[in-house]
């Protein structure tokens, strides 16, 4: 049994930026077998579909999961109203997460907005060998910078309006970085245009790149074929399930132009 349905009790909840919540759940069964880059599917009262949210952290010994989500619509709004002590009905761990090299390798991690949370465990794995480039609308929307610092990473903050860190896009920062440095692998999660830009740069510099894709989901476990993403390989083009075969893909697998 690879999947578990569990009522995760909320142990802690913090609004880390306006409309963005950092939640710690007691969810021992899922935490036991979770892997970096996987996600859980959360039941919201009154809705037919669960909401997929990435794991921003997990501790199998303590039996806890950490998720960070932004209120985008009615489901996440409902989630944001839950309180410490309430249960979240979740299923997980879902999907195929990030592949990790040896932690002595150099990794560059590029996150955009609320795509950043699943990258934190990756950064925590590579620690001082990780360079983390994250981008947000503005200073007050930026999240997880303390976590990246604590993990000992080299981190670069970008904002669209220059209100904190570098005034500009993560892809620009990445380009500058790659012009002066090299690395063994790139990880990215965020808006599709950003990830596409990162993928292009990775390809130019011949660096392996893993991207975490988003798609609207039905079952979350591979059964309904609702969540496909266009991919390609030697056998041609495919529509591949994000929930089962992803969310993490090699950037070269994704058919960005489809």
């Amino acid at each position, binding site marked *: 049994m*690879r999947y578990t349905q569990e009522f995760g009790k909320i142990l802690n909840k913090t609004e880390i930026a306006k409309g963005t919540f950092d939640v710690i759940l007691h969810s021992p069964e899922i935490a036991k077998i979770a892997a970096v880059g996987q996600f859980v599917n959360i039941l919201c009262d009154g809705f037919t579909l669960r909401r997929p949210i990435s794991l921003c952290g997990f501790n199998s010994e303590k039996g806890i999961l950490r998720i960070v989500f932004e209120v985008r619509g009615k489901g996440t709004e409902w989630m944001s109203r839950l309180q410490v002590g309430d249960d979240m009905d979740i299923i997980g761990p879902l999907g195929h997460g990030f592949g990790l090299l040896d932690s002595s390798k150099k990794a560059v991690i590029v996150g955009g907005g609320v795509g950043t949370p699943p990258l934190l465990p990756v950064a925590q794995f590579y620690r001082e060998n990780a360079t983390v480039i994250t981008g947000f609308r503005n200073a007050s929307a930026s999240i997880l910078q303390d976590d990246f610092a604590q993990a000992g990473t080299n981190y670069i903050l970008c904002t669209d309006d220059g209100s904190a860190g570098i005034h500009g896009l993560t892809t620009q920062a990445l380009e500058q970085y790659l012009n002066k440095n090299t690395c063994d692998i790139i990880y990215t999660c965020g808006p599709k245009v950003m990830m596409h830009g990162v993928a292009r740069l990775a390809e130019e510099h011949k660096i392996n790149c893993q991207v975490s894709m988003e798609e609207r989901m*039905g*079952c979350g476990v*591979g*059964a309904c*074929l609702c969540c*496909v993403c266009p991919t390609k390989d030697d056998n041609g083009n495919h*529509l591949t399930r994000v929930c089962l075969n992803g969310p993490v893909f090699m950037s070269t697998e994704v058919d960005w132009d489809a």
Partner: protein
Amino acid sequence: MPDMSVKICGVSFKNPVIAASGTYGYGMDYNEFYPISRLGGISCKGTTLVERAGNPAPRIAETPCGILNSVGLQNPGVGRFLTSYLPRLKKQNIVVIANIAGNSVEDYCKMAERLKESQVDIIELNISCPNVKQGGVNFGILPGSVAEVTSQVKKHSDKPLMVKLTPNVTSIGDIAKAAEGAGADALSLINTLTGMRIDIKTRRPILRNNTGGLSGSAIFPVALRMVREVYKCVKIPVVGMGGISSWEDAAEMMIAGASAVQVGTANFRDPFACIKIIEGLESFADSLGLKSIAELTGTLNEW
């Protein structure tokens, strides 16, 4: 405890709860939650002669108490179904229904031929999929074409044939009678109601396919009414589906006339939905003192 097994066109099911086509893949995904051998049966994802890529994403949108999907019959083709998926599924000791679709009567017949002597227990003729351009639902909306495809497939098949009906018709009873007259061994209904959702910010349909099929509890009252209507005008068994999400819904469906039920969208919300429905039906039958769950079928007392 009551006998939970039901028999439909000669095939015995452990219990009357079947996973609905397209919502449960080829079964193995949900086998990671519980042994799917606990189900009465599984209707596999709609399968075609050759592999199909389906429609581009987004393929799913949420609606009040329901969802729209426009998957469009993505499937590996009947060849790989027979070589890789069916054997694995059959190992689980479960009744397997092959849901087949095509672009022409010939396609359907060839599919039926390919399934001959396979381990498939029942063929479910999907003439009601709203998400493909050619064929699909077109066969399902006219009594004449329903009769034609049914009788032709019957000739090319050695399996019991269950015809799956679309609700997007004026008279479901006429369609049901046409299928029965042409030799269908059972009927299943309903497939999805065609619907749409729009993103008012972009002023574009949410589904990349513009329209999709509505399923989930929103459609339950329509499904129940149609199952009742069909039950009253045919003699072959009826398998009811459409929005069943609790054992109470399943009980309503059986009381209306269904010999078994299929559960689709409810699995997304609760992966254990089918199991809970089986358990709920069992205690309900027990509380009524029924010897067999089959005694529930068609016991509605109309006003």
